[in-house]
């Protein structure tokens, strides 16, 4: 329930040791896996690169091949004297805990999870809030009262998406049937597509995609069979607005950009920062952020208005979306 990470946030204030604003800084981003398969890391990479260009700092991205490579890359980055070492995701948690504790003079940042150390800035998202909105919208929009979701793997992290979605769906349409299927892999669009087709044959008219690379398969199924779907992380509606009618957003790029910017400008703070709907770190197209594409009639302005109201309630604290991981 305690998803705002308040204790860490207070600690942030005392650690305002801002480095000098010189452009001779070296910043490195170490992703815990190959960027290839994950738009999440691609965005981080983009954000860091963009900031690097804008603020004239040296930035480099290193991809780790596997979990044990993360620690090695972190240590190598320390050895190579990078001024700020950014990494991300729960997979890097253990490695960063070790390396950051051993190098208290170095500055670190980690995106999407918390490492509670004085020289680490942690940024986390409350994806379940956005998933709740998506589910709410699906509940309002569905005509057949059957809604599906194709998720990647049955691991705790994904629960933020599936459970959040289900809660939202229940809140607006308690009678809707919810089907969730797991692909069992992050990189299997063929199977994801089959799952979507199966859910469609079971009567679903809206099938949310949350299967990483597999999402592409779900989109294709939607186009083929004419049902509606939604994307993840970035605004996916632009690729096929007719079928991809919504997108659950996660601002990793802006967070990465912001982190570099803060570091260069000397406004960098250690401690945990928590991004939800309120902080505009997560969101939903049309509801929290406009989109270049046209709103699908399946959703309709009416639904958007209603979901906007739900969003306001969450921001205002009138509705709390529980963190499924707690």
């Amino acid at each position: 329930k305690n998803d705002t990470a308040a204790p860490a946030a207070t600690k942030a204030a005392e650690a305002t040791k801002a480095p000098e604003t010189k452009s001779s800084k070296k910043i490195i981003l170490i992703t815990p896996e190959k960027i290839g398969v994950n738009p999440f890391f691609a965005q981080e990479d983009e954000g860091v690169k963009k900031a690097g260009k804008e603020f004239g700092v040296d930035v480099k991205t290193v991809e780790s091949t596997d979990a044990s490579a993360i620690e090695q890359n972190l240590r190598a980055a320390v050895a190579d004297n990078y001024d700020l070492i950014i990494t991300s995701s729960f997979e890097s948690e253990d490695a960063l805990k070790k390396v950051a504790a051993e190098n208290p003079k170095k500055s670190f940042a980690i995106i999407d999870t918390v490492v509670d150390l004085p020289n680490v800035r942690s940024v986390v998202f409350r994806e379940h809030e956005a998933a709740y909105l998506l589910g709410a919208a699906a509940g309002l929009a569905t005509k057949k009262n059957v809604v599906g979701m194709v998720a990647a793997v049955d691991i705790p992290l994904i629960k933020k998406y599936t459970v959040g979605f289900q809660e939202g769906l229940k809140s607006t349409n308690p009678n809707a049937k919810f089907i969730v299927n797991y692909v069992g892999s992050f990189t299997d669009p063929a199977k994801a597509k089959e799952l979507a087709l199966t859910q469609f044959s079971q009567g679903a008219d809206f099938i949310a995609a949350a299967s990483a690379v597999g999402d592409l398969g779900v989109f294709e199924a939607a186009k083929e069979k004419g049902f509606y779907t939604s994307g993840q992380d970035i605004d996916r509606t632009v690729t096929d607005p007719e079928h991809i009618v919504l997108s659950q957003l996660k601002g990793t790029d802006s967070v990465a950009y912001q982190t570099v910017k803060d570091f260069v400008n000397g406004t960098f703070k250690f401690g945990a920062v928590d991004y939800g709907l309120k902080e505009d770190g997560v969101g939903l197209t049309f509801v929290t952020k406009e989109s270049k594409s046209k709103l699908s009639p399946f959703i309709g302005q009416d639904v958007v208005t209603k979901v906007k109201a739900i969003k306001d309630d969450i921001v205002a604290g009138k509705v709390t979306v529980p963190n499924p991981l707690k």
Partner: protein
Amino acid sequence: MLNWKGNIGALLQPLIAVCIGLLGGAIAIVLIGGSISDTYAQMWKGAFGNFYFFTNTLTRATPLILVGLGVSIAFRAGFFNMGSEGQMILGALTSAMIALYFPGPALFKLFAALLGGIAVGGIWSAFAGWLDARFKMNLIVTTLLLNYIAALFAGYLVAYPLKDKTGSAALAQTMMVDKSIWLPKLFQGMSMHAGFIIAIVLAVLLFLFIKYSAAGYEIRMLGYNPLFAAYGGVNRGKLMLASMFASGGFAGLAGAVEVLGMQYRYTDGMITNPGFAWSGIMATLLSGAHPLGTTVAAVLLAALQTGGMGVERNTSIPLEISSVIQSLLILFVTAKFSYTLWKRRKGGGSDAASS
């Protein structure tokens, strides 16, 4: 010893192979417009460049050595154990569970965790052996299938009942093992841990066992010709279970050591993603199932991997191509290497399923 000419030939051949492999890699580098000398220099640096990177390579080699030793025992006895991955997973999971939930003093827990890993990995492997001995199920298929089952089962445990609910709780993993049960690090600030010592000691012991013990003799003869072994009074069923147990036990130990020495918990995918088991199998095949050779081959493979990371960090060569170079090197090193062994296996029939 008398045959020094042959020995030099045996040494020369892999050396030439490495050279050709490097040449092949060089072509790949040139094709993508990189600098050969720089790339190889970075590769060397990443693998052996200084003490830190050197120990890093040895750390990486540790589970490969153990898995490789395990595969080589089974292989020597004439069985192709492709199930190291599943055995390693279960070994890792078990050791994490014991370290987390067993009562008792720390040192006792550490030993219990290591032994538990060995036992469970061994049983999982012996199970496949039993299916072969009892039901004549093809060992290669069963061990492959059991990998998937083990991985999914372990995945379930850490995603639900054993899940770490502290921290972000986003990952399917157990809680972290208490510091008192960690395998000691060998050097301050380096990742190398006592597991490496265990691996080396076991490699030497296994070498002595296979070469000089009576049981080792029986294992070798069983592998050479099971009928000859049966004729000489070797009990195939029993020895099969024993060698498969030992084989899986080594894999289980590899998993346990990775948990207690490196990650300090079991995380879903920590064994599968780095491909430890496949590298271990390769190390065995590269060395013709010789325990000491397996150790050397494992270090070589680990060096290629850590060297590849070095290339990725310090050159513009993309990560993808470093895995290409790695595979090219391996391919050429294997060429004409463990040839005789395979030829014998080919007739063995228990692998290729030609009617």
